[in-house]
């Protein structure tokens, strides 16, 4: 039996797994404990074969690696390599989408089209592309050219997407610090190079490289991916959805889409709709596409697809026995899924040539044949449903509802109904008068190490009580929606008086007969770009740097390297970034000091580690208070 206790839905499926003798991450974590101290502190180096070298954190053993690297060097090199893992994931994701868009423009990917023409024109104009007398296709091709320059440029000029998306105050600050970037691929290459044996041994220089990697992630990853997603599939608008594993329906063909890239999941959704009749012929009521992880967030934001599970529940959603096919693309896909799917009739289908899992069925998905392949995959799910019939399924009943779709465009559109010439004014006024005491962006994953402490929920409730508005993305958003925090009823239940008043007024202005929820779902992990855009717009409207705003970021349940690089981008933007559990920096006094203190004098940002949810919320609130005082509000 596992020693941890989770929310009822999660727990009931863990119990079912245990009763069936199926191993899950919870069991595997227990057999990993206690985990290696050197690893947790970041002070183990295995970059070359004179090592592995470990630095004794208690000063009673080795204080340097064989090559002479100190704990500071080892920790900072390791951190930069984590940043590379995260940034490469997002840049790779963005590149995939850009290339899909390019194929569409060339007429080679007939399954795709330009859905949001306004966004296309907006990005073209902000990139300085002349649009008169040009077709959308021509404009699109020029945009693609600008995007590809950001991974091919050798002239040292700042990246197009950075100039396009960052505010001038931050741009100037980065220029002054010498951390502007020109070509994301070069930065990734240089980071791997400088961290290999016998290169950069200056911890401060390495930490500056970490900040650069944060910018790589923010602009060549997050912003670029979100922009192309919106052009291809539409910019999200506010809507309501259902969430939790209870959205599975035993009488329907259940297709769980898992991973990150909507280029695949959009087509699966489209074909699931087109093939309803096939499913009915085989005895199903319908086809039920449900979202897991971030590709789930992508579909929920644009199409209101129900959100079945966050990353930690990706195994458990299979334990229901009700999933006919789980279709995955890239990132956060646990290898264990194949072993669990094997215990049921469930088909696990991998689609990316670089993401294969033994035991899964591999259907390589390429955008040129998107329609055939999506149809083929949906058909496999329908066939699998036939095999499932009669098998014992267990779908926990609990479901929640919530609002999703808070793109910056949707937020501004809503605010325009209050003040069409100065849409941000109502928000700014309420920040000034304290009704909105501050804003916190929650990002990242559910941590198997902290999930049983309800870290995210407790922190969020504590912040809401203190009139702090919460915006969130990724799997953290799924934790919030499952906890009912994105439902309008949460407003009266959890918010302080000021925030309550604002959300009631906004709900009315937006034309809903209920208040807006206090936690806003802004999308997938790459959609942290939307949080960046919102903060930039607010700072510009007030005429200050982002670092002066009464705001903060938090990765309350750190898991992925991607959260490290996103967090570093937030640090570069000048935010306080709360992180739990601790990033692997504590083995280095220099890294610990700079990241948690001195960085504040450089970008305005700093790391704040705290594992207790109530204390963490209090720490963030005191930071917001400090920022308010400095602004004189």
């Amino acid at each position, binding site marked *: 039996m596992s020693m941890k206790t989770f929310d009822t839905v999660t727990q009931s499926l863990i119990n079912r797994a245990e009763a069936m003798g199926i191993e899950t991450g919870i069991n595997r974590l227990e057999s990993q404990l*206690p985990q*290696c*101290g050197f690893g*947790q*502190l970041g002070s183990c180096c295995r970059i070359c074969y004179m090592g592995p070298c470990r630095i004794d*954190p*208690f000063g009673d*053993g080795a204080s340097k690696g064989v090559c002479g690297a100190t704990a500071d060097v080892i920790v900072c090199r390791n951190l930069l390599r984590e940043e590379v893992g995260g940034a490469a994931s997002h840049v790779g994701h963005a590149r995939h989408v850009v290339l899909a868009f390019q194929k569409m423009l060339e007429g080679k990917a007939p399954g795709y089209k330009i859905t949001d023409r306004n966004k296309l024109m907006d990005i073209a104009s902000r990139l300085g592309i002349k649009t008169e007398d040009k077709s959308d296709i021509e404009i699109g091709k020029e945009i693609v050219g600008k995007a590809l320059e950001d991974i091919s440029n050798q002239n040292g000029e700042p990246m197009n997407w950075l100039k396009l998306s960052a505010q001038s105050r931050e741009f100037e600050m980065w220029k002054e610090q010498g951390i502007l970037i020109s070509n994301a691929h070069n930065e990734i290459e240089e980071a791997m190079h400088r961290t290999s044996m016998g290169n950069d041994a200056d911890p401060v220089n390495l930490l500056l490289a970490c900040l650069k990697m944060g910018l790589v992630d923010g602009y060549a990853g997050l912003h670029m991916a979100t922009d192309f997603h919106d052009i291809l599939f539409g910019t999200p608008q506010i809507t309501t959805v259902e969430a939790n594993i209870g959205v599975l329906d035993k009488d329907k063909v259940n297709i769980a889409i898992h991973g990150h890239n909507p280029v695949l999941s959009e087509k699966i959704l489209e074909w699931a709709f087109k093939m309803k009749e096939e499913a009915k012929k085989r005895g199903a009521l319908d086809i039920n596409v449900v979202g897991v992880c971030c590709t789930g967030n992508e579909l929920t934001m644009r199409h209101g697809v129900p959100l079945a599970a966050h990353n930690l529940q990706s195994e458990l959603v299979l334990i229901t026995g009700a999933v006919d096919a789980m279709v995955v693309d890239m990132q956060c896909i646990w290898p264990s899924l194949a072993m669990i799917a094997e215990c049921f009739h469930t088909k696990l289908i991998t689609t990316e040539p670089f993401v294969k899992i033994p035991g899964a069925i591999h259907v390589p998905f390429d955008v040129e044949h998107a329609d055939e392949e999506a149809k083929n995959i949906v058909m496999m799910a329908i066939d699998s449903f036939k095999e499932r019939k009669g098998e014992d399924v267990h779908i926990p009943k609990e479901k929640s509802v919530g609002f999703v779709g808070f793109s910056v465009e949707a937020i501004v559109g809503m605010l325009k109904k209050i003040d069409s010439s100065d849409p941000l004014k109502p928000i700014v006024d309420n920040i000034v008068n304290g009704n909105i005491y501050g804003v916190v962006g929650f990002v990242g994953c559910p941590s198997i190490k902290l999930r049983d402490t309800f870290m995210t929920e407790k922190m969020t409730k504590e912040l809401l009580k203190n009139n702090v508005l919460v915006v969130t993305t990724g799997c953290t958003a799924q934790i919030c929606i499952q906890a009912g925090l994105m439902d309008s009823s949460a407003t009266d239940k959890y918010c302080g008086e000021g925030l309550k008043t604002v959300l009631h007024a906004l709900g009315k202005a937006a034309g809903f007969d209920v208040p807006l929820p206090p936690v806003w779902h802004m999308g997938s992990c790459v959609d942290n770009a939307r949080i960046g855009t919102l903060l930039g717009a607010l700072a510009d409207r007030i005429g200050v740097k982002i670092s002066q705003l009464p705001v903060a970021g938090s990765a309350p349940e750190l898991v992925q390297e991607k959260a490290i690089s996103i967090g570093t981008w937030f640090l570069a933007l000048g935010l306080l970034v709360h992180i739990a559990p*601790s990033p692997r920096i*504590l083995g280095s006094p220099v890294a610990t000091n700079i990241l948690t203190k001195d960085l504040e004098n450089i970008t305005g940002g700093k790391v704040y580690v705290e594992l207790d949810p109530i204390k963490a919320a209090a720490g963030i609130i005191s930071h917001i208070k400090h920022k308010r005082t400095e602004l004189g509000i």
Partner: protein
Amino acid sequence: MKEIFIDIERCTACKSCEIACAVEHSLSKDLFSAIFENPLPVKRVYVEKAFLFSYPVKCMHCADAACIAACPTGAMHRNHEFGSVVVNNDKCMGCWMCAMVCPFGAIIPDYAVKTARKCDFCPDRLKEGGKPACVEACPTNTITFGEMKDLFKSKRLLSAERVAKAVLVQEDKEVTPLEMLRSIENI
């Protein structure tokens, strides 16, 4: 009485036992706080290299302990609750006789406090019915903790198995039906 058993063949020299030991002897007993304590906590187990092996050197809490016999002040003594050999710091005068006679080198002269430092068998953990920190931390079960009769029994079973396997793999030997059955059951 439970005791420590060390299987040198399993140690990968990861030093997890060393870290766990220092953390256990810190004020906070938490890695992330312990590294900021002043003075820093110290370990009582040292992973040392011998040919291709590594071995976690620590006190074996000997039944007839040379260190107790050699100690002129009675500082080194037996804790009868856990059968462990421990130092009374108030009585220890730092003559290091114990360190000189210990055949394992398990005693470390601690010049900062002028007393002998050694494995104390993690009394806080044993009181709670737990295992010593190094035992719990070792990912390969190099260091195990249990009743000596069980520990030796499993060692004997292991030797029996080895001998049996060696017999089974003799290629030119004629295999009897009984041996055939055994080979199916046991391998």
